[in-house]
């Protein structure tokens, strides 16, 4: 178990290292540099030259990368090219806002979709199951921003004015102090991920409900509730854990579009902005953080899978 954990952590770090190289190479492949991006239409040679010097863009690509890597190793994310502020200062509040949004969405979406999946499986082929299956399938096929825009239309601008259409969080405030601003983006994320998890849960639950030991449990006369929650669910949940992890990881990246639609002050809007600005230190930092979420979430999912699967839990002892 410890060896397994150690190996996974080391592999995770290697992944992050490779990601940093790929992202850096990709940003280099973008035409133009931060100086041109910042000046845009005013990119006269004199102003580009002055700004490039100021931003140290005259250094070689390799030296820029090693400089950045050296900073990361010592816990320094570098300085933003666009704002000349420390990257950590620039992104910390936004990371917290995005993390809050994703965690709130996950806390609601995961149990909800597991319960929904179980319920559909139990009512398999009844009208309720058919309606929910079709609805979730339809929702799963909608892009996030369409869901977001539809919610804004329904709940904020045209039909009803219940929630704010855009998430204005005053600077210096955190998203959790402005709960209203989180409602629509969170709802969008919940609607976006629930179909996947619930459909997987339904499929796996149906399989388990058809197995012999469930039939056995029923024949023993155990109450239905006990059969489902004590016997069936723990065995059906493994695929749901895996897909939940994938969805959580997806949310960490997919939050970009949702934040964009609602002008939510999180990492998504900042990532889009930084790519536009060719602000490589910020792009690097955010890409690494999103990649780290992928690695950690997958690791946690694997550990959970081991915990709920006796066969795996006892292996290697």
């Amino acid at each position: 178990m410890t060896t397994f954990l150690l190996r996974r952590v080391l592999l995770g770090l290697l992944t992050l290292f490779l990601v940093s190289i790929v992202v850096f190479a990709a940003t280099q492949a973008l035409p133009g540099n931060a100086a041109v991006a910042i000046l845009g239409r005013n990119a006269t040679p004199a102003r580009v030259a002055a700004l490039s010097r100021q931003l140290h863009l005259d250094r070689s690509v390799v030296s820029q990368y090693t400089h950045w890597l050296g900073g990361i190793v010592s816990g320094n994310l570098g300085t933003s090219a666009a704002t000349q502020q420390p990257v950590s200062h620039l992104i910390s509040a936004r990371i917290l806002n995005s993390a809050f949004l994703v965690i709130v969405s996950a806390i609601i979406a995961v149990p909800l979709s597991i319960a929904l999946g179980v319920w559909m499986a139990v009512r398999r082929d009844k009208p309720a199951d058919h309606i929910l299956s079709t609805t979730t399938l339809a929702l799963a096929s909608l892009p996030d921003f369409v869901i977001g825009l539809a919610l804004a239309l329904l709940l904020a601008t045209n039909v009803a004015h219940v929630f704010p259409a855009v998430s204005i969080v005053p600077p210096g405030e955190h998203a959790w102090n402005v709960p209203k601003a989180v409602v629509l983006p969170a709802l969008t994320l919940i609607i976006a991920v629930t179909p996947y998890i619930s459909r997987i849960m339904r499929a796996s639950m149906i399989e388990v409900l058809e197995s012999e030991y469930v039939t056995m449990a029923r024949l023993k006369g155990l109450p239905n509730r006990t059969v489902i929650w004590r016997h069936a669910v723990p065995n059906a949940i493994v695929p749901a854990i895996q897909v939940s992890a994938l969805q959580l990881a997806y949310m960490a990246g997919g939050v970009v579009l949702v934040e964009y639609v609602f002008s939510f002050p999180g990492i998504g809007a900042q990532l889009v902005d930084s790519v536009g600005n060719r602000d490589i230190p910020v792009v690097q930092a955010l890409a690494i953080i999103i990649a780290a979420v992928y690695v950690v979430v997958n690791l946690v999912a694997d550990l959970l899978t081991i915990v709920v699967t006796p066969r795996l839990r006892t292996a290697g002892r």
Partner: protein
Amino acid sequence: MTDNDFSREDTIGGVTRRQVLRGALGSGAVLSAGALLAACGSSGNSSSSSASSSAGSGASSGPIKAGGAISVGATGGGAKDTIDAHLPTADPDIMRCWNLYEPLAVRPPDFGPLQMMVAESLEPEHGKANSWIVKLRPGVEFHNGKTVAPEDVIFSLQRILDPKNPKVGAASIGYIDIKNIKKVSSSEIRIPLKIANATFPDDIGQYFNAIVPVGYDPAKPVGTGAFMYGSFTPGQQSVFKKFPNYWQSGKPYADQLTIIDFTDDTARVNALLGGQVLAVDNLPSGQIAQVQGTSGLKVLISQTGEWQPFTMRVDQAPFSDARVRQAMRLIVNRPQMVEQVLSGQGRIANDMYSPFDPAYDSSLPQRHQDVEQAKSLLKQAGHSGLAVQLTTAPVFQGIVQAAEVFAQQASAAGVTVKLQKLDSGTFYGSNYLKWTLAQDFWATREYLPQVAQGSLPSSPFNECHWADPTFIKYINEARATLDQTKRNEILRQAETIEYNSGGYIIPYFSNQIDAYSDKLTGFVEAKSGFPLGNYWFKNVGFKA
């Protein structure tokens, strides 16, 4: 913002770029007689509009009460937002500048004569256009309580023209002889120029040439504007407070102004529809109907002098032949372009810019699509079956669509226009200003200042590589001529040369479209092209 690998980005890139243009290249307008009069302190007659007579719509008026907080949605913005008086680039930067700072003089929203701000007058010395005397308006205070002095003006100009770090305004007033600028008295400054320029007041009378106090630090921004600094968070919002000692008595009306960045057009409009902001700039034309149909909201449409030309390099084949350039101009179906590209929000143009300048020659015949004539010109030039590449990028709203419509119209004349669609990062990369056939966008400006920006070999943005010797002769002559009537005669001759053989195809002038809640009043149309009436929230307040 520059890159645009995501399609959503395109809009951002576009709009921001548009604002950049306003910021950077804004260099006013030829000073009309009226403007000179106003400059001398008398009441000026209204300047100019020869090209267009009809007005826009949606301005508001009525009694205004003092107090209240106004929140506005601005287009774009992000981490590189700035509050520096001399470095505005994106739309929110420009909005901040107009409210925090003031230049010596500036064109009002109706693009009438130059309005004196920090200066009381701006006059040529000894009747010659190569040296100017600025007289300060008495008692104008900075937000820190200090009264504006000649030293502050000198400091501001030195900061703009700093050779190590030239600011936005440097491109338009680079000809100031900065070493010899002098304080003449406790309220006067002499500004000598390296060239004679009768339209100097318009070049310096730009919002980005603001007067800031000696020792200005953008971290603690101080200006003379109607609102003073409260807080500023790049990419999110800025909060400004009423400046109680503002020189224009009774203004501003509101106690607080909050400017909120919106990278997404839909989010910005949704914020207005949902009542989270009371005004937005740059309403997409597709959403005019929806906003108009919402009770409590108004759409403000302004006819401007903004233009988005196709640029042909006159020094490169095939456009080095003036007949080919004429043929390209005859290919364009202008009314169709206004309809398809601008959803009707614009008016056709005649391959000439600066429609509000009194020197604008409206007697030159309006060019219409003439495919037969175009074909025959191409045949004479030996270019039948011409195939050209048009370089386009989403640098301004509607530009890529304009390129597509143009390509379609050209095929009717047997000309193949191949589109090279780039992202704006590449467009502004190393080939910027060198494309053989490309596009650009410009703000409302009068003729001579516009020429200085784009139509002389010395211009920073001469994309057509236009260097006609007779044209240059006329321009130099006009610059040295302070008499407006004489100057305009000379300028019409220069215009005729551009009309007959210039490198621009100018199909239309586009409208500026904004929207606001009818709780507010005081908004005026902006021929200047600066949204919401030059962003002057000092004129806006809640309905009494």
